[in-house]
């Protein structure tokens, strides 16, 4: 579904990404783990064209998208839920969700899609008319994910969905990610909570200082000493 080859991005004079190769297959959930500053968010921004990569190829469902604008990439079916719960704080919950369906040309599908989001996140259904800014952190994250789903993405990219949430809410968010996966959504997940991310995902990439240093099936990575000591906080 998504294929990144030799992606290089500079951040000012600094090389932030140094030749990234990454792949996400249909129906998979792939996670990208790495320390703060490893370049995870820069990689997502480069894929979405929020920052301009220096070189490299990005193919989405077989077509090259590195020449497209962010808006055009979104319209192709790749949706990023950015970190920090980037909801529209001055809009209501309902308006946020409707903005999620902004690219939809089929007005008839918006109603049922809303119903589905409310079924998945009942707390949002009860707060449709509330300003998004008034939601709790966890609710804002649910809104951000729900808004992403309203676009009916082929590939949903989640950037640090559990960041800054209370433990119980983190649990909840990961169970939602699991459900989304089971219902067939292809997901690229970026997480600092490596343990949870590896447990929920099929495959993983480890990003260190702008390069992929390790990749493979999560079950195998979870057994590797370097992963356990560096990302799971266990002594080798």
């Amino acid at each position, binding site marked *: 579904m998504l294929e990144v080859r030799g992606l290089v991005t500079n951040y000012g004079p600094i090389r932030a990404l140094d030749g990234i190769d990454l792949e996400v297959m249909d129906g998979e959930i792939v996670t990208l783990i790495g320390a703060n500053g490893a370049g995870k968010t820069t990689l997502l921004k480069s894929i*979405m064209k*929020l920052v301009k990569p220096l070189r490299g190829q990005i193919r989405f469902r077989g077509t090259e998208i590195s020449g497209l*604008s*962010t*808006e055009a990439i*979104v*319209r192709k079916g790749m*949706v*990023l839920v*950015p970190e920090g719960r*980037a*909801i*529209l*704080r*001055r*809009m209501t919950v309902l*308006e946020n969700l*409707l*903005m*999620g369906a*902004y*690219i939809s040309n089929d007005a008839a599908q918006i109603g049922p899609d809303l119903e589905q989001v409310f079924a998945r996140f009942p707390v949002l259904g009860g707060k449709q008319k509330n300003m998004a800014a008034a939601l709790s952190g966890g609710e804002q994250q649910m809104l951000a994910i729900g*808004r992403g789903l309203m*676009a009916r993405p082929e590939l949903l990219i989640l950037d640090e969905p559990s960041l800054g949430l209370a433990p119980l809410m983190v649990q909840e968010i990961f169970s939602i990610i699991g459900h989304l996966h089971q219902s067939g959504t292809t997901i690229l997940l970026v997480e600092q909570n490596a343990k949870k991310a590896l447990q929920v995902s099929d495959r993983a990439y480890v990003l260190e200082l702008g390069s992929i240093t390790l990749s493979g099936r999560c079950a195998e990575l979870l057994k590797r000493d370097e992963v356990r000591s560096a990302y799971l906080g266990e002594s080798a």
Partner: protein
Amino acid sequence: MFLQQLINGIMLGSTYSLVAIGYTLIFGVLNLLHFAHGEVFMLGAFFALQLSLGLKWGLAASMLGALIGTALVGFLIERVAIRPIKREYFIAPLVATIGVTIILQEVATKLFGSAPVGFPQTVGIENFQLGPIGINTLQIVILSISLTLMILMHLFVSKTKMGRAMRATAENATTARLLGVKVNGIIIQTFMIASALAGVAGVLVGMAYNTISPYMGAHMAGKGFAIMLLGGLGNIRGAMLGGIILGVAETFCVGYLASSYRDAFAYGVMVLILILKPSGLFGSLIHED
């Protein structure tokens, strides 16, 4: 007397509101103080004058012509003086709009002369007496046009898909992009709507005072800018109410104090409000990016 002044103030203020809404819309999506907005207001008045005197168009047609003409001017300003300029240098677009101000003013002076010119009496004036309040046809026309435009604007921004996209862009352009909003399209659309509102305001002010001049824009620009601050940056409802507050403050000053102090009084009220509430009366909605 009090009610009479209030009505007069609301009428005057509603034209200010139309100009201020444009300021605040453009500030919202671009974080830009659009200096030339007052000149667009002035052009609206001259477009209507040319259409009604030159082509003998009626009031409604002239006003519609002015609305379309100023929307096109807004389109051109965005294309020529805003879009090509890199926004990273935040002073550069500001200076560009100052440049546009001067160009439009000089062009208007060349075309229409620098002296104030009479604006045709387009409405048959009839006076009505409602208890203590006297109101004439002209005032009713001005008030109903500006209030209708404000209501339409409010409905557009709060209820339509395009309006939502505009608010999303104003709140956070990156987030809007990630939702598939073509931000450049929204910016140009915002310029056209803002300019059309200013153009209509120009016609209304021409009708109210029977005289227009190429320099009327500068005066209005100051007021529109002040109202934007008063209502809160980027806050559309704030601009609507702020315009009416300033208009009422002015007419009360003329009625109860002295007419020569009207601007000083109006700006004094503004300074006072900003000292007490720096984010404006109704809260600032500044772009976060």
